[in-house]
């Protein structure tokens, strides 16, 4: 694939200051920082579906917001279609933003309860002048049908729709400005399984039909496996493993990925609960993350050398993992 990737994230850092009392400031006590992203590097090809997976507080949502330019970065670059989003002038940024849209977790809080669905979708169409004013209504109907809703839904209020229908509206709204990249943050997490399946298939169909690129952020490994060709696993603000989903899931190379996969309760009673003891303890605080490998405090394979920053080990199949023992971990799972 010589083609330039649609999105390249290079060495991205983001720290949030922890609130400090005025007195503590006067006393010269040090300012603490929450490490939300540290040295995150990955690329997403055009038309690809990239899954960002990790547990609460790993920084996956922050990463999505950084990509969209909703938060300023502290260091690093985000190249979208060849331009560094973090360095462009405001006018260009606005134009770039139209090309990347977000689908939120909770479509109820992201839709104005007093605005009819049709108006909610027409708003971005008018703002960005996507179609002439006399065609807006027609375009709204077309978008509603594209996401599997009747065009009559335009006259409804969000409260009259079910959760799955509202999520479809959220998707239609994101699609209205004809973006290249869709960032979906836990977009199916609030939905029941039967409805979740509908929305997953819709997102995948849209990606194929419209040539969209999808950055799909989720804590749900099953959903990522279903939808995403490529996966990036996050832990405490760092990406610990990246590669084709089928390969990473079949033979994880990072001990955290391995533990995460072993933790999923499999919907098959003949598979006994994984023999692997569940990962002990809980993720450390991102305020003072461990030095060296962030996972070493919970890692069953940790050794002395893990106190230094782990190398990014390149593996066959276009994969890498940030672990001294990545190759050994992966090969140990060869059947």
């Amino acid at each position, binding site marked *: 694939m010589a083609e330039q990737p649609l999105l390249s994230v290079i060495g991205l850092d983001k720290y949030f200051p922890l609130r400090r009392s005025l007195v503590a400031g006067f006393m010269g006590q040090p300012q603490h920082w929450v490490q939300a992203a540290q040295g995150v590097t990955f690329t997403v090809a055009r038309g690809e579906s990239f899954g960002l997976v990790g*547990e*609460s507080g790993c920084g996956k949502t922050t990463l999505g917001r950084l990509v969209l330019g909703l938060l300023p970065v502290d260091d690093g670059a985000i190249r979208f279609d060849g331009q560094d989003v973090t360095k462009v002038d405001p006018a260009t940024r606005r134009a770039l933003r139209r090309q990347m849209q977000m689908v939120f977790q909770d479509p109820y809080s992201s839709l104005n309860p007093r605005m009819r669905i049709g108006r909610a979708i027409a708003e971005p169409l008018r703002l960005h002048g996507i179609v002439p004013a006399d065609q807006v209504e027609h375009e709204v109907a077309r978008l509603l049908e594209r996401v599997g809703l009747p065009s009559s839904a335009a006259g409804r209020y969000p409260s009259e729709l*079910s959760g799955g229908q509202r999520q479809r509206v959220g998707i239609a709204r994101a699609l209205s400005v004809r973006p290249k990249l869709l960032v979906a943050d836990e977009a199916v997490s609030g939905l*029941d*399984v*039967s*409805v*979740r*399946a*509908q929305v*997953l*298939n819709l997102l*995948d169909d849209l990606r194929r039909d419209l040539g969209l690129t999808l950055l799909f952020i989720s*804590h749900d*490994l*099953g*959903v990522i*496996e*279903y*939808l995403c060709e490529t996966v990036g696993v996050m832990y405490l603000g760092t990406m610990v493993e990246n590669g084709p*989903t*089928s390969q990473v899931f079949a033979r994880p190379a990072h001990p955290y990925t391995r*533990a*995460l996969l*072993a*933790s*999923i*309760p*499999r*919907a*098959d*009673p*003949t*598979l006994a*609960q*994984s023999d692997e003891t*569940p*990962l*002990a303890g*809980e993720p450390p605080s991102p305020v003072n993350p461990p030095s060296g490998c962030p996972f070493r405090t919970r890692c069953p394979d940790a050794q002395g050398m893990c106190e230094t920053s782990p190398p990014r080990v390149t593996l066959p199949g276009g994969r890498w993992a940030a672990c001294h023992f990545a190759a050994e971990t992966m090969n140990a799972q060869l059947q």
Partner: protein
Amino acid sequence: MVDLLTVDHLGIGIPRGSNTVALVEDVSFTVRAGESYGIVGESGCGKSTTIRAIIRLLTGKARITRGAVRFDGVDLAQAKESALQSIRGAGIGMVFQDPLTALNPVLTVGRQIAEGLRYHGQLSAADRHARMLEAMRLVGLPDPARIAASYPHELSGGQRQRAAIAIALIASPRLLLADEPTTALDVTIQAQILRLLSDLRSRLGMALVLVTHDLGVVAQTCDRVAVMYSGRIVEEAPIRRIFENPRHPYTVALLNSIPRGSRAGHPLHPIAGMPPDPAHRPSGCSFAARCPNRQTDCEAVAPGWTPDAGGGGFACFHPARAHAEVPHG
């Protein structure tokens, strides 16, 4: 095994105007001593309402409208509040989905865990303290003395759920009701809590009723399972049968809508449409409108219960075929 809990034709309704809307209709099941029984279904199917009704913790205006809940020779559906007090905690413990809202934010964790002992048995304060620390160790809370003196907001989500389980266990119940106990937790913490519940069950010989939307959790935790849809149990079976040979079309559809690999390898088949509004359920089968096996008789009357050879049964006129031999789990 001895029957510990028998829910018999339970109906739960909520008054709306001059009518009563049925939230749960004609639910019957039995939990044996020491077993793990799952209730699975999607939002609004009545699973949480059902287990809350067992210990009469229905919220709002919901009421038991018919049926019985027998535990230890007592019909909990009819029991007086004083009788319920002695059963809650010592007979039946309960764990809720969100440990933060289940815990009192202004009391220390230790005090909340020990509180149950004040109402059950005549223990001295020192003995209660010792039992509290023991319960905290049992649920795997590190450094019990320190955590006992902490407030809920000082604990992590996983620790809070462990504390909530300690509260439920302190008076040694024979049955633990758990309503989505791991839904609010991360997957690695969920694995820890599920392992803990299984360990506690085998060590204490306690029965467990686990309500969840997650078929994976049920598969890994339960001996038998009931599938609920629109206020009714539509299928019940030993755990392996439900996954290997689901009979009710809803169970089949539910299993087909969970991801099990890539879309190319295992495409998902969503269930079209929505469950009916409880106030306007059809006179026939509630699933008929979404069912691929639907025939005209389904719309006339609700199907009765058909027992299955391997245990359990289903409520359907046109079920999926039974496999020739079904291994029982």
